[in-house]
């Protein structure tokens, strides 16, 4: 084999082995079994990042459908988990809007709201605004279809006003 071919083989081997060593210290697997699992996870993450860079990123539609089904059954933690898995890079406005909405619905209470859930909903809404400022949901089941409406509802829920002590408030409906 010519000198330059041996040099190319050497460079390639060193680069691959070097990347493997760096991966080991970054992933810190605790056993040989975990090493395989972490390698698969890293490859998947790299593939998703590659899709984002090349502009071919798409959500996992099967997971998204699972999320919608769970959302309709009012199983909001499961729905959020499915939405999060369908959009690991948090780049789909629709999935992020459903996550925000699931926080709102789970946190809504006839007498008092769960402030922690409402704040998480606001965080998810910020992501929606960041991804698509003109986002509008096409889901007829949702009464608040835009981030602005949902944000207003959430902020109203977080604010303490004299209206909160109105006994008729228990008659209001979740949107």
């Amino acid at each position, binding site marked *: 084999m010519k000198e330059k071919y*041996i*040099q190319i*083989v*050497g460079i390639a081997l*060193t680069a691959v082995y*070097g990347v493997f060593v760096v991966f*080991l210290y970054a992933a810190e697997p605790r056993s040989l079994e975990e090493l395989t699992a972490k390698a698969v996870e890293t490859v998947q993450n790299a593939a998703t990042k590659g899709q984002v860079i090349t502009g071919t990123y798409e959500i996992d539609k099967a997971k998204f459908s699972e999320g919608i089904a769970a959302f309709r059954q009012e199983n909001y933690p499961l729905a959020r988990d499915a939405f999060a898995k369908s959009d690991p890079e948090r780049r789909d406005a629709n999935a992020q809007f459903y996550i925000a909405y699931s926080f709102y619905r789970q946190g809504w209470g006839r007498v008092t709201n769960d402030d922690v859930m409402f704040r998480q909903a606001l965080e998810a809404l910020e992501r929606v605004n960041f991804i698509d400022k003109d986002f509008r949901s096409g889901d007829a089941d949702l009464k608040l279809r835009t981030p602005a409406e949902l944000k207003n509802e959430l902020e109203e829920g977080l604010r303490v006003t004299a209206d909160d002590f109105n006994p008729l408030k228990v008659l209001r409906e979740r949107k």
Partner: protein
Amino acid sequence: MNDALKKFEVVDGELVEVDDEDHLLIRDNSELQRVAPEIHERNILYLRYVIIPIVFLTVAMLGGLRISGLDGAFVFVRPALICLIFAAILLILFARSKVLETNGWFSESFPMLKNVANGFVIAALFAAATQVFNSLIPEQGLMFWIVAFCFFWTLWNNLFADFDAQKLFRSLGALFGLAFVAKYLILANLTAPAGRTWLEALMENPGQEAVTRLLDLPRFSGATGYIQFFAVGLFLLGLYLLPSRTSD
């Protein structure tokens, strides 16, 4: 003219024709001698660009590997910044003592590919040196600072000393040997085993427990010492195989 003639080596023998074009056979005193300079050169290239980087990267992989004393899990300890500084000083020492001749590894007259390939070898050497220091310096606590200071003192003095490759290797051998004994024999034996309750540790071996807590010694399995012995040995083997220059 006479001086020039003396430099040539005269082979007195009969040339023999063979099918294999890679080899030249010479009949000398009825014995056939096989001369294959190309194979020799090829082996040197394999050694330089394939085997040596693999040896150094194996050291880089193993140098930070510890085995947990509690459940035998892998623990990958990333090198502290000081290890990178020590590795850089070590490479300067190699250059000063002609263990590595800089202009024999990198030159404008070399093809770019050769310079790049040599760069990868040196990068692998740097990674291995970093991890050897990571291996030999205690991970944390007071002992980390004491041993790191001793390393720094020795390397810093060597930086200004007038010495050759042999003296450097003797100095490094002594330094690495002492550090290995200090960490993996003395400190490892002073460390209390993991997985015992506070009360058990105090009842069974209060001395070890006190030293472990006082010096903040990590509780690794005994297998760690074996792995690190192998890693340091591989590093020294890599240095032995490393040529001082790649140009003819």
